[in-house]
């Protein structure tokens, strides 16, 4: 995947020139968060809800198809609130219409559908964030998601997270300690997701505003271990602090061997923490320790 946009001094992926399309805008969450995003200052140009064309939500025009919305308002970024069973169709419609950044907020999208979405996106040079993502926020410029805007503060720390609510938790504690954020991305909590830690790290590396990065991981899968592997040889100069949730979680009952064959003995909090420690990523023991570690890094 090649990333063309977001290289600059204003955070990554989205900024104040982002033209947003809301898919599923007439639904309960879609309309509510359209309101919140608008009041944050996000430039929403159109919405789509099949069969609801011609309506308005928060004075934003609604279309039946992405194609019509594209023709009249040329959005370059889309956010999906559509129900899980329609998410694949909606995402692929946006990709087909040339939209290059698509945030899927929808939870419970079937894995088989996600695989198809990501494959289609990769063939068309589009970036998928999610599914099950809280979205992206570049504080003060653009809020593309469901996060409470007021817990974020503009600054120079990039934040990448597998968890939605933990993103808010840690951003809030950073903001309280006067550590602002360049961009915060929730990459989604599903087993298969579009943009990963590594791709986000590369974007933050090229963003001159970002001085340090926070990674928020959790037990399960091997995203953290794979990221640590990448960092081993990446010559990554910006400091990274990580928090891994799930130290106290009970072990999962396993069935089948395939997971272990694919991932090896990965997945526990201890294993992820060790992997990060080995490549110089600082580990925060509690969410609030992230701010303490960052303060030390930024002050030296």
């Amino acid at each position, binding site marked *: 995947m090649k990333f063309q946009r977001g290289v600059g001094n204003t955070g990554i992926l989205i900024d104040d020139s982002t033209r947003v399309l809301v898919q599923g805008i007439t639904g309960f969450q879609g309309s509510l968060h359209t309101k919140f995003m608008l009041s944050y200052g996000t430039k929403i140009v159109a919405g789509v809800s099949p069969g609801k064309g011609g309506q308005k939500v928060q004075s934003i025009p609604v279309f039946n198809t992405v194609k019509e919305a594209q023709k009249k308002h040329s959005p370059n970024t889309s956010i999906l609130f559509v129900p899980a069973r329609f998410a694949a169709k909606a995402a692929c419609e946006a990709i087909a219409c040339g939209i290059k950044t698509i945030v899927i907020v929808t939870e419970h999208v079937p894995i088989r559908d996600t*695989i*198809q979405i990501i494959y289609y996106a990769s063939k068309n040079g589009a970036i998928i964030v999610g599914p099950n993502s809280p979205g992206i926020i570049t504080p003060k410029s653009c809020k593309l998601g469901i996060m409470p805007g007021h817990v974020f503060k503009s600054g120079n720390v990039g934040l990448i997270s*597998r968890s939605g609510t933990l993103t808010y938790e840690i951003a809030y504690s950073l903001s309280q300690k006067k550590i602002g954020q360049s961009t915060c991305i929730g990459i989604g909590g599903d*087993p298969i997701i579009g943009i990963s830690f590594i791709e986000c790290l590369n974007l933050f590396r090229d963003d001159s505003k970002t001085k340090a990065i926070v990674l928020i991981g959790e037990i399960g899968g091997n995203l953290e271990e794979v990221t640590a592997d990448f960092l081993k040889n990446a010559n990554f100069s910006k400091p990274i602090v990580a928090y891994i949730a799930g130290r106290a979680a009970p072990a999962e009952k396993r069935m089948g061997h*395939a997971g272990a064959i*694919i991932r090896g003995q990965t997945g526990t909090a201890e294993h992820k923490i060790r992997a990060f420690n080995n490549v110089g990523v600082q580990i925060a023991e509690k969410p609030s320790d992230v701010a303490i570690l960052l303060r030390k890094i930024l002050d030296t």
Partner: protein
Amino acid sequence: MKLFEYEAKCILTNYGILVPKGVLVNDHILQNESVKELELPFAVKSQILVSGRQKAGGILFSTSIEQTKECLKTLLGAKIKNEIVGRVLIEEKINFIKELYFGITIDRNQQSYVVIASEMGGIDIEQTSIDFPQKIIKLPVNPNKGLSFSVAKKIGAKLGYTGISLKSLANVFVNLFQIVEDYDIELIELNPLVETAHGNFVALDSRIIIDDNALFRHSEYRKKSFELGRELGSIEIEAKKAGLVYLKLDGEIGIIGNGAGLVLATLDIVTYYGGKPANFLDLGGGASVEQIILAMKFVLKDVQVKVLFVNILGGLTRCDDVAHAIISTITETKVTTPVIVRLLGTNEEQGRKILIENAVDVFDNMEEATIRALEVSKGCR
């Protein structure tokens, strides 16, 4: 959703994959007619949803009907790897010349399905994958093309097969991928898939996990996923029906949060400060007032719970909904268990106001709230 071996084998049979002849038994009284079609010796296999069954004594072998009855007595009702055996599958024991492994699962890093195959199948496959990584074939499946017959043949050839047996093995692989697509499979595993002296390939054991999020496309299994004695206890099933993820733990600090990551972090922090979580309860995103009330009732049902800690960071979830739910649960159930709330995010001002008016302890900092909850659990008011 994890399927029992006998359920997995039903699906395999429908797709032309051979499995041993067998009958499912769920009580001690073995009707002789039920096994008269089967040829001794038998494999008597407990049906539980966890790996490592054989090593834990969950699979026995018998050479007579009498011995089979003894095996049933041993297995039915026994606790194997912490699961109670409610059903036993009696199968003909198959003679074979070779054990293979074949599985398809999702690969998070490849963002696709991946085929895993090995000529060294059997219960030690995980160790084999560490000791002899060259004996494990891993191949991502192109999401557009699926698993074609020619790719399946290549895998079979790598396992050392040629001619007719290669063709029939490749057919097994292709059919298996068809099952993956038709049933929204997260994991399907034939281990071992054995080759018999007659050149047949027979799946002696099989594991299937269906993607929970796709159960709306498979209503038969959706219904079964709520059955008792499957993966969850009765409270967990009730919670699942209400769209909540509940897991009972051993401690005394009841925990409700929104979002798996935040709930995990809450467990971690409670543990960090010396408390013991009584449960994991994730409301998910955008829970309704009704769902939150149900969630509180689930946790408060647990007699071990000395304090309920509700930790909410509103995104889709609205803090005013949470506050309303808390107040109406407290009034409705006349519960005396203290409730400590942390609220932040969407509509937090309204939420906080409602709680304060009703004299419920509310915080905006998670650690302060945790420390307070632990104090309260020790009797400090």
